[in-house]
C-alpha cells in the first residue's frame, strides 16, 4: 500500500518561455499571475498539499527571484514545517558542462532525493492549471504495478503547443509516447505529472544524464518509454497548459465560466497562494460590472465586462474594460477604454486613452508602463 506520507513532491519550473515572452520578463512562466490572485505554480503545489504530501522540492529556474518571493517559507501552503516541508533545489551552473535542459538540474540535486526517506516521487510541472487529489493516482499506480504512471487529460478541439501524446491500450498500459506540436480532439495528452519509485527515478536521471541526455521529458521519458512498464491515468477535471500568450489568455477566460471557477476554487480543496491583506472590492455609485472576476483591493467607478481584475486595480469613472486581464495595482483612469488587453502589474492607463487588441490576439502592456 502506498501511503501519501511516502511520496515526495517535486515541482519542475522549466517551462519554455519563448511563446509567452511579454509576460516572462523578470519572471519564469510558473510565476505568471493568474485568475486575479494566483500564480501558475499554486495549482500543482496546492494539489500536492491537499493530497497530503508534506515534502515538496521546487526545481528552481535560472532566475528564481519571482518564485522565491512568492513561495518564501511555504507558510501560505502550510509547508513551513519543522521537519520536511518546502525545499528549494537550485539549478546547476556547471562551467565545464554548459549544456542546457532540466536533466542536469535533476542530476545535480540527486543527493536531495536520495537523502529523504520517501519511497516515491511525484513529479509535476508548474505551468498546468488543475485542482486534483493525487490519492486516487497512488491507488492506481499500486493496482497496476506500473514502474511509471503518467497523468493525462483528453484534449477537446484542436490545440497548438508542444505536447507529450500518449497512446494506450484499453487498460491504460502505455504503448507509445511522442512529442507533437498540434494535437486534435480526443488525444490523450500528458499533464506533466509523473509518479514512480524514488529508486527508479534516481536511476533514470543518472542513466539518461550520463548518456548525454538534456531534457527529462524527452530523454528520460519519451525515449526510454519502451524500457519500462508505464501506465496512464486520466484526470477528467478541468485542465489547461499555459505555455503561450494565447493559451494564457484562453485559460484566463475559461475561469470566467462559473463551472470552471467552482471546480477550481470552491470545491473541498482550496488553491492556496501568497496572502496579502487587501480590502474587499469597493464598488462606487457609478460602477457597472458584468461577467468578471475581481480580486480584493480593487476600487471600481467605471465599467468592467468579461474581464479579470487582480488585487488593487483602480477603474476610474467613465473608464471601460472589456475582454481584458488587468494585473495587480494597475490604474485605469477616468474615461480610458481597454479592450482585448493584458496589462501586466503596475500599468497606468491615463485619462481618455484607448487601447484595443484583436479578439484572439490580445495586446500586452508590460509591467510599470504608463500610457
Amino acid at each position, binding site marked *: 500500500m502506498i501511503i501519501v506520507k511516502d511520496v515526495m513532491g517535486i515541482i519542475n519550473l522549466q517551462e519554455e518561455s519563448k511563446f509567452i515572452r511579454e509576460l516572462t520578463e523578470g519572471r519564469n512562466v510558473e510565476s505568471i499571475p493568474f*485568475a*486575479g*490572485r494566483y500564480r501558475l505554480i499554486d495549482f500543482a503545489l496546492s494539489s500536492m498539499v491537499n493530497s497530503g504530501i508534506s515534502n515538496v522540492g521546487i526545481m528552481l529556474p535560472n532566475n528564481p527571484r519571482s518564485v522565491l518571493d512568492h513561495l518564501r517559507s511555504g507558510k501560505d501552503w502550510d509547508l513551513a514545517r519543522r521537519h520536511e516541508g518546502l525545499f528549494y533545489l537550485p539549478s546547476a551552473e556547471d562551467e565545464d558542462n554548459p549544456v542546457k535542459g532540466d536533466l542536469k538540474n535533476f542530476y545535480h540535486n540527486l543527493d536531495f532525493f536520495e537523502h529523504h526517506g520517501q519511497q516515491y516521487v511525484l513529479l509535476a510541472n508548474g505551468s498546468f492549471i488543475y485542482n486534483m487529489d493525487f490519492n486516487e493516482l497512488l491507488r492506481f499506480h499500486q493496482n497496476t504495478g506500473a514502474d511509471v504512471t503518467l497523468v493525462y487529460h483528453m484534449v477537446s478541439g484542436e490545440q497548438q503547443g508542444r505536447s507529450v501524446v500518449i497512446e494506450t491500450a484499453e487498460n491504460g498500459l502505455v504503448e507509445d509516447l511522442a512529442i507533437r506540436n498540434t494535437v486534435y480532439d480526443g488525444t490523450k495528452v500528458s499533464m506533466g505529472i509523473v509518479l514512480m519509485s524514488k529508486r527508479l527515478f534516481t536511476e533514470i536521471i543518472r542513466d539518461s544524464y550520463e548518456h548525454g541526455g538534456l531534457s527529462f521529458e524527452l530523454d528520460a521519458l519519451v525515449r526510454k518509454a519502451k524500457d519500462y512498464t508505464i501506465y496512464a491515468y486520466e484526470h477528467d477535471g478541468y485542465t489547461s497548459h499555459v505555455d503561450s500568450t494565447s493559451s494564457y489568455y484562453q485559460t484566463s477566460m475559461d475561469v470566467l465560466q462559473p463551472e470552471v*471557477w467552482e471546480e477550481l476554487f470552491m470545491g473541498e480543496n482550496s488553491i492556496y497562494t501568497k496572502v496579502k491583506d487587501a*480590502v*474587499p472590492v469597493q464598488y462606487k*455609485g457609478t460602477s457597472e460590472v458584468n*461577467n468578471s472576476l475581481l480580486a480584493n483591493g480593487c476600487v471600481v467607478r467605471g465599467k*468592467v465586462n468579461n474581464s479579470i481584475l487582480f488585487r488593487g486595480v483602480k477603474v476610474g469613472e467613465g473608464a471601460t474594460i472589456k475582454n481584458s486581464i488587468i494585473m495587480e495595482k494597475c490604474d485605469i483612469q477616468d474615461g480610458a477604454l481597454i479592450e482585448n488587453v493584458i496589462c501586466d502589474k503596475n500599468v497606468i492607463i491615463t485619462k481618455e486613452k484607448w487601447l484595443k487588441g484583436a479578439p484572439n490576439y490580445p495586446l500586452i502592456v508590460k509591467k510599470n508602463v504608463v500610457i
Partner: protein
Amino acid sequence: MRKTECLAMILAGGQGSRLGALTKKIAKPAVPFGGKYRIIDFPLSNCANSGIDKVGVLTQYRPLELHNYLASGSAWDLDKKEGGVFILPPYAREKGADWYRGTADAIYQNLNFIDLADPDYVLILSGDHIYTMDYSWMLEAHKRNKADATIGVIEVPWDEAPRFGIMNTDKTGRIEEFEEKPAKPKSNLASMGIYIFSKDFLEKYLIEDARDETSAHDFGKNIIPKMLADKARLFSYAFEGYWKDVGTIESLWQANMDLLQDKPPFELDGDWRIYSSNPSMPPHYVGPEAQIKSSMISEGSMILGTVENSVIFPGVRIGKGAHVMNSVIMPSTVIAEGATVDYAIVAQNCRIESGAQVAGEPGAITVVAEGETVAAEAGSKQAG
C-alpha cells in the same frame, strides 16, 4: 520571556448582549465586520502597527471561535519567538476557579501573566471598537506627562455626551473629574476605553480592588474613580479620527455603511493596514446580469443579482433576480433567486430562500441569526 516595554491586554470576554442574535454563538470581538474582518482585527492590527508585539487576549464568553480565529496570531504578524498573541481564558488555581467578574478582575486574575511579560506599561484595550490608532504616540504622551495612567478620549457631539464616560480635564490634559454618563456634561471628551497604566501603579490598585467586596471590579466604575480620589496623575490623550463603538445592532450596521461612502472615513489598507485571517478563496465572480453599486464585496462570493449599498462577506451567493440593499451579508450565506433583503444584517451560513423577503427599515435593522433559514411561505421577516 524577554522584558517588554508595553504589554497590551485586550478585553475580549464580553457577551455583547446588545448585539442579540449575532452573539448567540460567538463572542462580540469575533463578530464579522467590513466584508472580511472581525471586530478584534482592529485592536490587534493597531497593536501590530504600533510596534506592540506582546498582546494578551482575555476571553471568556463563547471563546471557541475566537480562539480558533486568533490561532497562532500569524495573521497579524504576531507569531513571534518572544511575544505574540497570548490567549488568556479564566483558569483554576489551588483554591478553586473564578470567572472574570469584571474588566478589572480579568486583568487582576492575569497579574501572573503580566509579571511574566515584565512590562513597564500596560495598555488595556477593549474588543468592541472600530478605529485605527497609533498607540505609540499615546505611550509617548504617557511618558512625557510622567503619568500614572493615560486615558484615550475622543470629542463626541455634546448631545451624545450623556451616553459616555466623560472626562473633565485641566489645560494640560490632566483629568480632574470622571463622570459616568452625566446628565449635564461639563465636557464632551468621552473615554474610549483605552488605558495605559504604569505597571506597578496598576498592580497596586488591582490588588486593592480585588480585596474590596463592594466593588464591581470595573475600570470605569471603580478603578479610575479610586485613582482620581487618590490624586494620582491621570492624563487624557485626545484622539482625532474615526472611532465607533459597535456594541449595538444599529451602530454595527452604521459602521459597515460608513465604509460605503465614496471616500470612507478611514482606510482599511494603506499605511495602517488592518490585518485579518484570510480565507483561501478566489476573486469573487460577478454574473452577466448582476448590478452592483456602492457596495463592498469580498472573495469567493458569486453575485448574479442586484446589490446596492451593502457589505458582502466571503463565500456569499446572491442568486439571479435577488435584491440586496442597505444590508450586511456575513460569510457563506445564500440569498436565493428572487429573494429580497433590505436594511438587514444576515449572519453566517444563513439561507434566504427563493422569493423570501427580509425587510427592516432605517432605525430598525432586521437580524437573521447564524445558520437560520428564511423561507418564502413563512411570510416575510419584518423589522424588529
